[in-house]
């Protein structure tokens, strides 16, 4: 646990900015709407936490391989504030001189051209835009505070600002959405020539207004067949536009896959800064308290910020790594898994794995265990047997 590991692997750095203009009714991320008054205290707290983490022997010595500013809506902060935070991270943590993938999430209508210029100049080289839909009627229904035109303008501005790596997030399975509206959104989005596309099926997360309304029968959601058709259409159009599917919900032009996220799916190491952010280091997973005020208070008082710590047994970590790895289309490298954990998947899972292979839900291709086309839409069923 102390000293450099034999195989350091990638180390992600994530910074959580839990502020939004309004809370979307389907979202269960930790974020606050309309509390920008807390921002400056939060920035102080983040800086403190960053210093603290950088001093730990087992983080400070490792090179950071990706940086991701997520939220919330990071672009609610002033570009100078984001630039300052990035500069701080680069000062405190070892970042290779050649630069690393550095992403910032932005929401349409929260940034204009000038802001994007500043972010690009500050060192962000990848932008991920929360478009969700290009249908204004649907955007209204899902409580988004921007329009399709805002989204298009933001994409153009980002390109003009020099973001050569640009991703869009879209959602399907939305109330009132049908295959035709989804097709239009996809076509318009692809016409913007993104390098990366995340196509997320709407998930009714427990405790969200959407989940409550759905339970009360107030949401007119497309049925399973239609959602499956949307899933298939998304894949067809994305791949037709040269974006290949590399994860259950993610598509990219070759070479533009999000490395930061791939590190999560490989169950790698990462440092998470901010309220509710998770760090995973040396087999420990630590979660900071998901409450901005408590987070600030604790850091100011010099108290630990963690609200949860998880330390899995090697076998459980092995299984978790398999399950996470299966989210990627190419799957998990069996030899790599064995090298990392000293465990062989086939003997660990025995007949369960054989059955899933026989059922055609899993396959082994080029030494990698992966979900088949049939297995992908049923991923949870397969994963529940391997977890």
């Amino acid at each position, binding site marked *: 646990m102390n000293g450099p590991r034999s195989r350091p692997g990638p180390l992600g750095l994530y910074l959580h900015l839990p502020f939004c203009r309004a809370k979307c009714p389907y979202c269960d991320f930790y974020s606050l709407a309309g509390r920008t008054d807390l921002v400056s205290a939060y920035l102080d707290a983040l800086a403190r936490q960053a210093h603290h983490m950088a001093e730990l022997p087992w983080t400070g010595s490792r090179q950071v391989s990706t940086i991701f500013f997520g939220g919330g809506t990071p672009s609610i902060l002033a570009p100078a504030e984001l630039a300052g935070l990035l500069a701080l991270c680069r000062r405190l943590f070892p970042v290779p001189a050649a630069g690393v993938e550095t992403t910032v999430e932005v929401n349409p209508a929260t940034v204009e051209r000038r802001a994007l210029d500043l972010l690009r100049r500050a060192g962000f080289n990848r932008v991920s835009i929360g478009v969700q839909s290009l249908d204004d009627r649907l955007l209204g229904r899902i409580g988004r505070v921007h329009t399709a035109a805002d989204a298009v303008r933001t994409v153009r501005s980002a390109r003009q600002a020099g973001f050569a790596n640009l991703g869009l997030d879209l959602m399907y399975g939305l109330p009132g959405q049908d295959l035709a509206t989804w097709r239009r959104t996809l076509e318009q989005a692809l016409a913007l020539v993104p390098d990366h596309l995340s196509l997320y099926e709407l998930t009714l997360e427990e405790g969200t207004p959407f989940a409550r309304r759905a339970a009360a029968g107030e949401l007119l959601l497309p049925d399973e067949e239609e959602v499956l058709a949307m899933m298939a259409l998304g894949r067809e159009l994305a791949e037709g536009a040269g974006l290949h599917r590399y994860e259950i919900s993610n598509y990219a032009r070759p070479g533009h896959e999000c490395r930061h996220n791939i590190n999560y799916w490989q169950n790698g190491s990462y440092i998470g800064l901010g309220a509710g952010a998770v760090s995973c280091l040396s087999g420990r997973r630590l979660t900071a308290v998901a409450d901005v005020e408590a987070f600030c208070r604790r850091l100011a008082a010099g108290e630990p910020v963690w609200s949860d710590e998880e330390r899995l047994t090697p076998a459980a970590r092995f299984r978790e790594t398999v399950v996470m790895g299966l989210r990627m289309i190419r799957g998990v490298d069996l030899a790599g898994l064995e090298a990392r954990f000293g465990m062989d998947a086939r003997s660990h899972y025995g007949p369960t794995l054989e059955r899933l292979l026989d059922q055609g839900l899993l396959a082994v291709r080029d030494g990698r265990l992966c979900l088949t086309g049939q297995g992908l*839409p049923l*991923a949870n069923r397969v994963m529940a047997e391997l977890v």
Partner: protein
Amino acid sequence: MKNIRNFSIIAHIDHGKSTLADRMIQRCDMVTDREFKDQLLDSMDIERERGITIKSQTICLPYTARDGVTYTLNLVDTPGHVDFSYEVSRALSSCEGALLLIDAAQGVEAQTLANLYLAMENDLEIIPVINKIDLPAAEPEKVARSIEEDLGLDRESIRLCSAKTGEGVDELLEAIVTLLPPPEGDPEQPLEALIFDANYDPYRGTVISVRIVNGRVRAGDQILFMSNNAAYRVEEVGLFRLNREPQKELTAGQVGYIIAGVKTVSDTRPGDTITHQQRPCPAPLPGFREVQQVVFSSIYPISTDDYEDLASALEKLKLNDAALTFQKDSSAALGFGFRCGFLGLLHLEVVQERLEREFGISLILTVPTVKYRFYLRDNTMQEIDNPAYFPDPATIERIEEPFIKATIHIPERYMGAVMSLCMERRGENTNYHYPMPGRIEFTCELPLAEVIYDFYDRLKSVTQGYGSFDYELIDYRPSDLVKLDILVNGEQVDALSQLIHRMHARERGLKACESLKREIPRQMFKIAIQAAVGGNIVARTNISALRKDVTAKCYGGDISRKRKLLEKQKAGKKRMKTVGNVEIPQRAFLSVLKSDQ
């Protein structure tokens, strides 16, 4: 003997029986305050929660009355449910009197009436007691009038008290001494002791609760159980104080216990007579009946690994529950389990709850069945209580099912509702009379199978709690019985088969299909669910294939939470039974069991 009073308390649930018993125990200085724990008599968890007493409990209180004499009061607490009415009647027959306890705010509620009638049948002297007079809503005057008018009891005998504050409890104890008769009996006659209960003690074996009717018994005596001629040597006799208190002897009129090396409670039979081997009494005491299991169901552990635990748990329960029977059973769907016999559905539920709660075993029960008689073409008769043994229909000459005579006491206004409930349940030969103005005693002959499910609950609901229900088995009558099978993807799930009247087959089949559809989660293929009688499908439904179960997003912050969800899904799968290739959760089995409600 003239200083003994044996009595019992009859009360509708929550009218304060346990509280009053506690108060009397305290009044008689039986417990120090430190030992005092509310509701001393209700010991088991389940009993406390449901307010039912399954076993009789007895306590012997020394009470010094105003006349200066110290009396021995034996309070026999009885179970209070129709499933146990034979046990109640045996316990009551060990007494000379009973307190009929009525809540001053609630008034007369008829759930206790069945026990009141049992008490009257046993010729007990009854003291009506109005309890909870401390309540602001108490209406003792109104309740007294209703006791007089509705129950036909003598107004002079009514006593008022508050078990909570203790007010009136002294007068009540006085009334017990003055109004209730002392026991009769002759200590010099041959021994006649009535067994009214038995409890298992891990160190001493069975502790038999007895009422000595005639004669005397002491340690060293050779005794005989008259029902089966089993002989034992008495090791100890004594009284039920807070703990057992050995005595030199028990004599006529006393209530106490006998320990005689009887291994299990099942070796004793409530209602049996104990006498001396050397000098037996001429005839057993009247009213003895063999315990009859009337409801049968198979119990399987959800996890086949729990089979051994289930076996030993049942053994342990059986030590103290003579009415429970079990034998090994097996099912293609569920593996090994036990076929169990119960006194009724409540008894079944109590056993099920104790197995799950006290022994931590998750169970699947099959649909409860009564015992049918199959007359076969080869002139033999088979008694069958398990659908698995339903004979080849071609070999069946005729089938008979057990009938009961139900006795229902109700206020007159519920007559119509009760009559139509009975008709719905294939009732015949209805009869009624008025034991007192405004009250009806309604009798009806019904197939036992029709009452074991929810009859009592339905009766309570159509009579708003005012219906009392008691029954006795009378005979067997021809029945058009069929075996209803459930098929999942073409495979018969033996544990879901049920024996039912042809009239109900389709309806029950539909309900079973619907319950299963609701409870079986979708799987990766379509599942056909069918109900069949013989080879004929009487109901069917489908569960469509699951096409999609995938989490859209999972990034660093979600990994633990998403993993835990998957682990939960995995654990849920472990609790399922696989039939063919279909996974069926425990809930689904239980839903079929409950599909009548």
